């Protein structure tokens, strides 16, 4: 974990509100593990004040990638960065997905949730079988399909709310079937709270080990402000930034 000034190599506008930043970050790129996130600030003034959290989408030292959607002031500013612009980074932060071998893994990503599992999928593919369920509102919200189709997933299941691509419906529609079909032993999920909630109730009685990467409003990202808490089943608060962002699903109070 370090403070670092990165340099934008490319700020690729994928489509609509979606962007992929490639940046040079000597430290973070060396230390980052699948599941980790970083805090970044695109602003040179005090507005917005806080850094913003983003999952490490991919990494190849000295470069890292973040995939983001423009939703407010911070991400809008981020989208105005040009090559050679500086970006202030804190990272890598948080825990990571478990190291696994010889498992049959199912990754489930909703929307920008793909950002937090993509790197993990690539790592897992080295020593495991991996399938992916990936869904969003419409085909305009599903990106990286070409990459995903060429990294030899055991299965790739696409969903869209409007049926514009893949199966019409939500990512949770056929989870049980897919788990049975592939003999899944591990699931990793990332997406909106509501999606994770539904996943939990669907798979909680199956024999899989289930991990989810959570989001929360973060003030600092490194355990100081205690703003990012999530309630656990035993009625305690855990900090998403330091206890997570990856949690065993049964730990959380859904």
């Amino acid at each position, binding site marked *: *974990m*370090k*403070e670092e000034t990165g340099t934008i190599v490319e700020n690729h506008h994928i489509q609509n509100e979606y962007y992929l930043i490639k940046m040079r970050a000597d430290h973070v790129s060396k230390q980052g593990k699948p599941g980790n996130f970083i805090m970044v*600030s695109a602003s040179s003034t*005090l*507005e*917005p*004040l*806080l*850094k913003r959290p983003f999952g490490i989408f991919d990494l190849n030292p000295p470069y890292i990638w973040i995939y983001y959607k423009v939703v407010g002031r911070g991400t809008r500013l981020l989208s105005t960065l040009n090559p050679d612009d500086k970006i*202030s980074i*804190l990272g890598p932060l948080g825990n990571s997905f478990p190291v696994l071998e010889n498992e049959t893994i199912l990754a489930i990503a909703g929307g920008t949730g793909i950002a937090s599992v993509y790197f993990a999928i690539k790592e897992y593919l080295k020593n495991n079988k991996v399938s992916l369920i990936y869904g969003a509102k419409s085909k305009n919200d599903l990106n990286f399909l070409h990459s995903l189709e060429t990294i030899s997933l055991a299965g790739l299941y696409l969903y869209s709310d409007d049926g514009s691509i893949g199966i019409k419906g939500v990512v949770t529609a056929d989870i049980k079937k897919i788990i049975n079909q592939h003999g899944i032993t591990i699931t990793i999920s990332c997406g909106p709270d509501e999606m994770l909630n539904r996943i939990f109730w669907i798979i909680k009685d199956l024999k899989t080990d289930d991990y989810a990467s959570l989001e*929360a*409003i973060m*003030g*600092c990202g*490194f*355990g*100081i*402000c*205690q*703003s*990012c*808490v*999530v*309630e656990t089943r035993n009625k*305690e*608060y855990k900090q998403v930034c330091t206890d997570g962002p990856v949690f065993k699903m049964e730990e959380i109070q859904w």
Partner: protein
Amino acid sequence: MVDLSVDLGFIGLKNPVIPASGTFGYGEEFLPFFNLDLLGAFVFKGIYKNKRMGNPPPRIQETPAGLLNSIGLPGPGMKELKKIIKRVYQSTSTPIIINVCGETDQEYLDVAEYFDRMEEVAILELNISCPNVKSGGRCPAQDDKHTYRLVKQIKQSVSTPLIVKLSPNVTDISAIAISAEEAGADCISLTNTFLGMAIDLESRKPLFSKIVAGLSGPAIKPLALRLVWEVARCVHVPVIGMGGITTGQDVLEFILAGATAVQTGTINLIEPSASIRIIKEIEQIMKEQNLMNLRELRGTLKT
């Protein structure tokens, strides 16, 4: 060489920069970023007698150049904290300040007495901005008589130097500061957060479960500077200034206004090594202005 040391009377600090309570964890979280020995002192996050969960999320909201927080002072309770203090004490020789909280005067007293017995604790900072259950949620810092009573009681029972930390949400900050001083405070620190509020338009609900929240950050700096100036004019004990400090220049402004030392708050969340940068900036400006030490500057505002 410029001399950054400052003297609080009851203790000397190698420089005036003290990370503030609630924005610096227990110090150890900052070890990846710098050596704690570089700081003037640092304040642990606020501690009550017993373990507390804190408020349900959301607990923060960014505002223009500011941060609203309603964390609710979660913490492990004073017994657990003792272990943490002993551990952190191993990693630094910088004075550790304990931020003492309480829902009642008795609880404040219990917590203060508990840590008074620890040699690892250099200073106690009495956070009199905690909502008080017996005063309908109002905090002692909003009432000069309550402030006097509470500080007096604690000073009679503890020997560790006592900083009293004021709230800005008052008509007459001088009256509160003078009460604290008369009751025996060794030092006054200010300011805690300003009462604010956020609303979620869609759900038509207050964003925070406790409705109100505390505003900190650059937005409040001009307000904090005024309060520190007012207090420093009317008390004789040293004053520790804070509120929106982000640069060495900010620090020197607070010192001109009469502060002996300062605390850095919200900036620690955004830029973990900010306090170290700020110390360097102070040194730099002092060199540029041919200032040998901070005594030359303190309280010399020409009004």
